[in-house]
């Protein structure tokens, strides 16, 4: 079972494999989430959602349902 970004733990780094949702994918790619790029899970908000990740040298917030559409390899 392929993992996705929403399932990562704080401090974990992984490589983006592909996207499951075309509509969100175009937006994610514009922000620098590209297949083959490293993504790091930094921390989550107090109620577990949204989360903060680092991708191509900057920090971004993502909601869990957005993060869940990004499949990773690690």
């Amino acid at each position, binding site marked *: 079972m392929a993992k996705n970004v929403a399932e990562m733990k704080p401090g974990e780094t992984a490589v983006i494999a592909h996207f499951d949702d*075309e*509509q*969100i*994918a*175009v*937006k*994610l*790619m*514009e*922000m*620098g989430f*590209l*297949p083959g790029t490293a993504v790091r899970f*930094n*921390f989550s*908000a*107090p*109620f*577990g*959602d*949204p989360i*903060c990740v*680092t991708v*191509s*040298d*900057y*920090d*971004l*917030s*993502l*909601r869990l349902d*957005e993060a869940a559409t990004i499949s990773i390899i690690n």
Partner: protein
Amino acid sequence: MAKRIRIALVGKPNSGKSSLFNHLTGLNQKIGNFPGVTVDKRTGSCQLDDATQGEIIDLPGIYSLYPRTLDEKIVTEIFTHPQHNLYPDKVVLIADATNLKNCLLLLTQLIDLKIPTVLALNMMDLAAKSGLSMDVKKLSKELDMPVVMINARVGHGIADLKKAMLKELRPSSVSVFAIEESIQRVVKLTREHFQLTTDYEAYQYLQQPDNLVSLKAEDREWIKATAKEHQFFAHKFQGAETVTRYGFIQELLNKVVLRKSTREWKKVSYGIDKVLTHKVWGYAIFFVVLFLIFQAIFAWAQIPMDFIDTSFARLSNWLAKELPEGPLFELISQGIVPGIGGIVIFIPQIAILFAFIAILEETGYMARVVFMMDKVMRKFGLNGKSVVPLMSGWACAIPAIMATRTIDNWKDRLITIFVTPFMSCSARLPVFTILVALIIPDTKLLGFFNYQGLVLMGLYLLGFTAAILSAWAMKFIIKTTERSYLMMELPTYRMPKWSNVGYTIVEKTKAFVFEAGKVILAISVILWVLASYGPIDEMNAAKVVARQEGEKLGLTEEQIQDNIAAYKLEHSYAGKLGKTIEPVIEPLGYDWKIGIALVTSFAAREVFVGTIATIYSIGSAEDQPTIKQRLKKEVNPVTGGPRYTPAVGLSLLVFYTFAMQCASTLAIVKRETKGWKWPLIQLAYMTGLAYLSAFIIFQTMG
């Protein structure tokens, strides 16, 4: 003759674009609207050399030509329409050097549109700190465009940038994104149809006809039909385009970056995040910040507000004495001057609130607030980004509603606009203060908490609760297929740049004065006419009766004048209106006198105090203790007891908390939602809720 060139500033949010704009233009800034759309347009002029003046346009922050929010559409609009009247001669793209990859995405799109561009590399100091080093000369050569290093915070490199802007600039000869073969035909067709200069422009037309606002309806239809006929699938091609562009960028960076950055320099920022977004401390700190803001709005703003209040009252009195008699001069001294005073009085509170908001945004803390509040807010149909508008609502709903433009999802934005006026704005405070002082004893609970203060706080909470619950209800009523996102940069913490804070205060205050001000002024003049004129016979008779009565009772001339004013108001058109609505408001415990105050409150709520002062012949509205004494003495002829019982007072307080009594807010909601539908629903809903709640309170307590 000085030459003028138009230069557009673009870049992603948090890249230092506002700082650069402020450095270039100083105080020569103008804020207007882009034609046809409600997006703030910031322009300014900048002397480039003795003979050339630059007209600088600060465009909304964007990541790419594919817009997410309303604001961003304007950028795509301008860049894909060379005939647009704001189409720039040159573009300066400001890039955050610590995050060059993302910043260059937009740059490659500008290159393909063949727009002459200068690349300004900002935050080189931070890039150096992060260990990054690159070959800027090579970058310039590879991109075939001038590259200037700047530090927008302190203003380094601005002179070099100006020089680069002055130089003859041709579009870069690089081509980044080649149109795929399968769609070359449809792109060519579109390009010919609209006589466009580049293929990429035609491609953009095909990609997002709905986002190009100035296209005619039939042109839009033509594009959609043509795209469909030639199997142009927007999403698929957009994804491929982004991958191609990032591929180009990665290759470029591999060539020019000599040493990569590390995460070390962000350690402090991450450390701060551990505390500020902590489960307990995060919220505790946020509430302390809110408390501080409240303290500032209530306590500190009071001093300048009192000063403005007395100054305008003096000016009005002085004018009344000095100007010759006559309706026109009365209009000036009693209609227009107090009307302007009623606008200026709110400036201190609005300026202080936006000073705080600007500082919170500048430091990067506001993004964390959005981050922390998003989940909670979503439960109620809102969005983390609704926090700023809701907070601004404590000062004034007008800039608050304008601040909702950053919310990309239409449903979330509409709900935020709809519920923001429930947040108790500064115009409600004078009304609250006088009524609370009237019905709540000035004693302390447990010797510590002042009862009056607690009730006041309760009213603010009541407004907030109404906002949240209404939002929650609307979540189920409004249907949308549009998805909501929260992909937002969490910028590294930094010290605020004070001049930027200053510019924000000026900008927001101006928005209030000119947007709200014109409506408040117009309505206060109308209301003044209604309150000063009535059927001539009745008005004259009222004057005579008041004088006779006063003389019989042996009152002083001043008291007689106050009584005449009250009699005149009673028999004016406004008085008649108050009496007409009396049967409607009677179940809430109000008489026609309060009715007049309700009617005049429609200019701005705080007019209530002035109207009450006039109708009870108090003469001056500044004198709060006197108003309080007089209201206490007012007798209800039906019961024989006091008119302002706790039941009536509470009923009024709740009415003012909920009711939509602000014509300027309605005007702004109409503009932002593009029609009368939402402001009218808002008016009916809020006033209905106010009526019902006041009714229940009065009937159960009274």
